[in-house]
């Protein structure tokens, strides 16, 4: 029975670095868009007044959420750095180094996550 593989390049073990970068950029992009809508709704509690805003914001500044914020900073950093990589390629710059540039984006964003946890350590590990 012959069947057509719709995306033959997206298969575990057969992925090129560029494909991994492309998928991660898309996945983080969708995640960040969903987060953005949530973020606007949470900050939008200001329309219900000072007390409602501070109550909502107090809930999302618990140690667990501060830790998740550090993770969010890492996701934003990856999407941003990999985005700069894409812009560079669109301008014809750095395509030769596309693989090391992807790994640099990924490693830097993990370091930013770790740095975020370190900076907020006294708010997370209370």
């Amino acid at each position, binding site marked *: 029975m012959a069947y057509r593989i719709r995306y033959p390049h997206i298969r575990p073990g057969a992925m090129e670095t560029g494909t991994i970068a492309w998928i991660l950029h898309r996945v983080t*992009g*969708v995640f960040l*868009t969903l987060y953005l809508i949530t973020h606007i709704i949470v900050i939008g509690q*200001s329309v219900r*007044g000072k007390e409602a805003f501070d109550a909502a*914001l*107090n809930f999302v*500044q618990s140690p667990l959420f501060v830790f998740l914020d550090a993770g969010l900073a890492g996701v934003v950093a990856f999407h*941003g750095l990999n985005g*700069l990589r894409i812009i560079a390629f669109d301008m014809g710059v750095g395509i030769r180094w596309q693989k090391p540039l992807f790994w640099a984006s990924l490693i830097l964003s993990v370091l930013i996550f770790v740095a975020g946890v370190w900076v907020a350590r006294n708010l997370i590990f209370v």
Partner: protein
Amino acid sequence: MAAVPRTSRDPLVQPRPRDVGFSFWPWFLQRVTGAALVVLLFVHLWVNHIVGIDEVEAGVYEDLVLFSLVADRLNEVIWWVVDVPLLGFTLFHGLNGLRNIALDWGVRGRNLTLLTWFLTAVGAVAFVFGMGALLAFQLYD
């Protein structure tokens, strides 16, 4: 949903840009807002989530983000110059990114038009609500 033309290995035999869903302005604005957001988000995250951690640890403030602190910040015009583009650029970049994914899936024609209007409506509502949220810091302060 129209079929997406096959791409060829021969660089001289490629489908026209519009047949693979490419158009200039969405592509260009995605790059411009993306580059601007790298700067704007760095400032946003630094000022709202790093500056002031010491005061919270010392017990000066209960939380890093408080209504009164945000209201004080928004009394200065420069933060409207940062926050309003931040709201508009993130919404455009995120929703246009979702449209790019639909283009990759092969969404064309009537479905694409409907999706574009739907995403535009979501963006417009979120932008107006976000502006209302910012203005509330001045109204209730």
